[in-house]
């Protein structure tokens, strides 16, 4: 593990982060948008674990934050999926572009 320099992990997490942002903006399916948000959160967890392991191995703060962040994002996903299922029941689709009942132009 020590053979892999820290930079490699950070590059990976940065790519994940920006892939998440890109996906969130371009995807038009609610589930795909949710997955993009998960990518961002995973990038964060990698960052915390890596910084903790390489730079500050004497404390466990980063790893604990990563653990809590996983739990929080699981809760968030559960609620989001419940809401998306509710939308599917009401409208029979989960396309973000067709969710336009609320808008400025009425």
């Amino acid at each position: 593990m020590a053979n892999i320099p820290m930079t490699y992990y950070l590059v990976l997490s940065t790519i994940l982060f920006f892939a998440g942002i890109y996906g969130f903006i371009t995807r038009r399916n609610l589930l795909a948008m949710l997955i993009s948000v998960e990518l961002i959160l995973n990038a964060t967890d990698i960052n915390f674990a890596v910084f903790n392991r390489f730079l500050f191995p004497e404390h466990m703060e980063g790893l604990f934050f990563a653990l809590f962040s996983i739990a929080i994002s699981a809760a968030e996903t559960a609620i989001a999926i419940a809401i998306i299922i509710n939308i599917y029941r009401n409208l029979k689709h989960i396309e973000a572009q067709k969710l336009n009942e609320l808008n400025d132009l009425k």
Partner: protein
Amino acid sequence: MDFSQFLALHEEISLVAALVLLLVYDLFAPEKGRRHIPLVACLLLLAHTVFCACDFAASTGCPAAAGSRTAFAGMYDASQAALLFKNILNIGVLLVCLQACPFLRREDNGIKAGEFYFLLFSTLLGMYLMLSAGHFLLFFIGMETASIPMASLVAFDKHKTQSAEAGAKFILSSAFASGLSFFGLSLIYGGTGSLYFADIQSGLTATPLLLGGMVLLCSGLFFKISLVPYHLWAADVYEGAPTPVTTYLSVISKGAGVFALCLILTRAFPLFIEAWQTALYVLILLSITVGNLFALRQKNMKRFLAFSSISQAGYIVLGVFAASPAGLTALMYYIFVYILSNVAAFGVVQLVEQHAGRTDMAAYNGLYKTNPKLSVILMFALFSLAGIPPFAGFFSKFFIFAATAESGAYVLLLIALLNTVISLYYYLLVVKAMFILPPAEPADVPAFKSEAAPKFVLVVCTAGILLAGLVSCLYALIDRTVLLG
């Protein structure tokens, strides 16, 4: 581990007790008793509010106990100002709970009343933790506890597509915002090696890594406060959510968000004051102006109040921008007055929606002819939001402008002042519709008598709007508390 440390968390314990009691009642109450859930919830919250107020009075009364209360090695660190702010939030939540009673008496919602209050109290618990955190882990747990149940509240009207749509928009943008915050925080952790506010403050160096981290971290909070350009979710969510939830979002969540922003900027990032003041300068300018300009063209009352609250958020953040005790005092006072005025405005909107089924502005034409009392209350609330003396809104605006002037940002102050004139125009449009325009034939909104609970809320809010500015002990109390630390 020493579990007695939990005893330092007075407000949180009291709220959790109220939550558990409510849950038990919801589970075991007989069929007849279930109708009284709103009443039980309001009584529990009232008891909690009184307990917190007594606790606060006791802690300011004896100098030994004053100052901040800490637990868990500084992870929980509640300043005296945060304690007072929790009391302000309690009053606001109590008003919203009472206001929600008719909404929960509706036939399809009767079975869900317990859950509504349970979710509402959970978000309040999250805000408490967020306000009294001394460590970013607790801060974020609090922030998520405040926003995840909020999403289910926004989507509470299960069979209305608008509500579901608003819920999806809220949860996705709030998850995205917290993702940004978390990533920013991970960069700060990489730079300073700690997540305690105090350690971050001492470990800060002006590197691009840390600055970028701070910007990302704050963007998440700007989303919650809905400052421009992070406001795009606000109008849709406010319109689609059930009206009591909209009220809660626009006053309580926003207020707690601004206070939390102030907390982390002053406690963790005082070294970057120039950077974040510049950022806030731009955001305030945009929020006030864009919020106002968009409010001008709205035809729906809930959207209208959403944009008005975006521009109000700009005014509130002026208190953070001032970065002084006077700024914090003005901020807390502004939020208190804003809670009263906005709850009154939304209270009227909710009653009209309940009895006439409409939220568009055309329904308000000639409201004075059919419901004179409601029209007068809405007028008072809007005047208070616009900042016309002698209503409380004038004094809160005055104090926040005074604090801004002290920090020397005169250009920003001038633009904010000009914007109050614009805001007066669109608030007056509503007043004109109610008092001058003729009602449709037959009247869109029939004359109606409202139930006791929302009536009580409106009376309390109106009294507050009229008195909160003139009774100076309120401002003096906040001022004293802030100076205690």
